[in-house]
């Protein structure tokens, strides 16, 4: 059985410097939730509070409705994996994996068998008698994960466990973590600064910025319906236009966008660069612009356009990304077509 986590109004100050400004978060039992944010946003501090390694200035943490504030780290039903594998250098791999069993009051008799099974599970069979220094970074991190799972935690806390690994290994390891999570079905909090990583494996993502939980949502929602400018920018939306809603249209300095029903309220419009199409012909939902420059981004091409009206002194840059590039010339007049169903009005400007 796994455990649901409830984080209630957690605040944390280091001396007078507020690091967490009232975080509320509920993680249903058995889910994998990523806490995403750039460095210094407080995500690791939040995880350490859930683990009990750090004390919150105010607020509470509940596991299955049970308040954890006065429960010490070692008594909480958690296990945590850190950025570094932190394998105890004075023990073999097997002894490392068995650590939680040996540290418990009633060590089970079949420790060796359990260790072998666990090493098998993390795809390191026969490694029990090796020493930590003989393993690669990815292997060490898998041992660290095995060691954490061995304590049979109800909540698994992962503090950027992949950020010390190289790119290819990261992809492999994140899938592996997802696999492990799915087979154990244990509630997992995964702290990361890598949005791709978070998008790939999470049931939901909690996005933090400067000690505030900006948005807690399904991965795809961060792309389609970001709630604030910061979220939109972090998730790679490059076109955020200022303006105002007038009936069914959003008015900007360079033209009007036709909105669909149930659009939100706000003074910012997010249009993702991959939802725009460049063409020479005008269409029902298009506006005029000039091609300024272009750049290859991987297999795609990113075209910078200037949509500002000739009468306006202010330049409005629009970025269009597509997988092929018709031979537009520099300074050529083009029409940029948008899809009304892909427009999103952002509520908060921060």
């Amino acid at each position, binding site marked *: 059985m796994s455990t649901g986590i409830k984080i209630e109004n957690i605040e944390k100050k280091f001396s007078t410097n507020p690091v967490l400004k009232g975080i509320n978060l509920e993680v249903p039992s058995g889910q994998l939730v990523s806490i995403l944010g750039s460095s210094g946003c407080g995500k690791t501090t939040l995880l350490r509070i859930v*683990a009990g*390694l750090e004390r919150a200035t105010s607020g509470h943490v509940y596991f299955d409705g049970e308040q954890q504030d006065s429960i010490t*780290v*070692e*008594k909480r039903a*958690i*296990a*945590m994996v*850190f950025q*570094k594998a*932190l394998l*105890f*250098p*004075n023990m073999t791999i097997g002894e490392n994996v068995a*650590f*939680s069993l*040996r*540290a*418990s009051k009633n060590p089970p008799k079949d420790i060796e068998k359990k260790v072998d099974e666990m090493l098998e599970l993390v795809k390191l069979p026969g490694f029990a008698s090796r020493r930590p220094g003989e393993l690669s970074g990815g292997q060490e991190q898998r041992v660290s994960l095995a*060691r*954490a799972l061995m*304590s049979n935690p109800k909540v698994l*806390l992962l503090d950027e466990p992949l950020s010390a690994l190289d790119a290819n290994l990261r992809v492999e390891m994140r899938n592996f973590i997802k696999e492990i999570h799915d087979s154990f079905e244990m509630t997992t909090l995964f702290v990361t600064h890598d949005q791709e990583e978070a998008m790939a494996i999470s049931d939901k993502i909690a996005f933090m910025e400067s000690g505030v939980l900006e948005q807690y949502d399904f991965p795809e929602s961060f792309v389609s319906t970001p709630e604030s400018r910061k979220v939109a920018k972090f998730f790679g939306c490059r076109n955020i236009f200022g303006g105002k809603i007038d009936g069914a249209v959003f008015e900007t300095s360079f033209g009007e966008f036709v909105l669909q029903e149930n659009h939100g309220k706000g003074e910012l419009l997010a249009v993702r660069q991959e939802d725009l199409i460049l063409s020479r012909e005008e269409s029902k939902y298009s506006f005029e612009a000039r091609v300024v420059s272009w750049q290859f981004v991987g297999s795609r091409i990113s075209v910078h356009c200037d949509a500002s009206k000739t009468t306006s002194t202010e330049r409005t840059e629009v970025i269009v990304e597509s997988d092929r590039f018709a031979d537009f010339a520099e300074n050529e007049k083009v029409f940029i077509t948008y899809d009304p169903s892909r427009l999103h009005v952002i509520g908060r400007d921060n």
Partner: protein
Amino acid sequence: MKVIFRPLFLGLFVFSVFFPFLSIIIWSIAAGWRFPDLLPERYSMRGYSIAFDPNGDIVRGVITSTIIALIVGVIATVIGSAAGRAIAMYNFKMKKAFQFLVLAPLIVPGLAVTMGIQILFIKYGLSDTVRGVILAHLIPTVPYVVMIMSGTFANFDRSYEEQGQVLGASRLTVMRKVTLPMVLPGLAVSFLFAFVISWSEYILTLLVGGAAVKTLPMVLFAFLRGSDLTLVGAASIVFMIPPLILLRFTSKHLVGRTSSVTGLGSV
């Protein structure tokens, strides 16, 4: 030229280090060694038979010194490790002052301090007792342990302890199974230093222990005055043995893989 100089220098170096020992070894088995002779005419084990007399002063001195040095070694290592850890890993008010106070005995002559605390020792009945001598020996030993252990703990990553805790281990278990094995080289070297300093301490023992606590250095000094050089030689050899035995067991922490502890590097 180089080919000649290297062995020559090495030979000189070894000779200058070991010559005093050599003469002590010879003296300890000489039965009369007069001036023009390069080596003694006759040899005898008289020195050693007196030195190893179970009821003699030397054997009793060895026992007293060993007990005192072992206790001082343990206490200094425990206190110094705690202080060293605090200095290396935590920030607290008056940290600089604390650091200075801990290391002050290395700078201020121990003799001056002892003159002052002797009055206190007499007042609390510690004068002329083994307890008092042990307490006095902590003055020069603790600072060394603090220096060694603050260096050890500065290189110790506290995350290992947190890793132990999040795996369900209590603080005591974490200390026993995680921290202690990782700082063991520092502890071994600390104990060695404290033991050796206490073992060879003379002035503090004399002032605090008076004539009542007869450690080996006290006995040795008495013999030196007696000018029986054979006996002095044998007693000196006995004096050197325990630290050498201890060094044998801790030397692996002084050099080699874990040499960062003392900064001596690999020799």
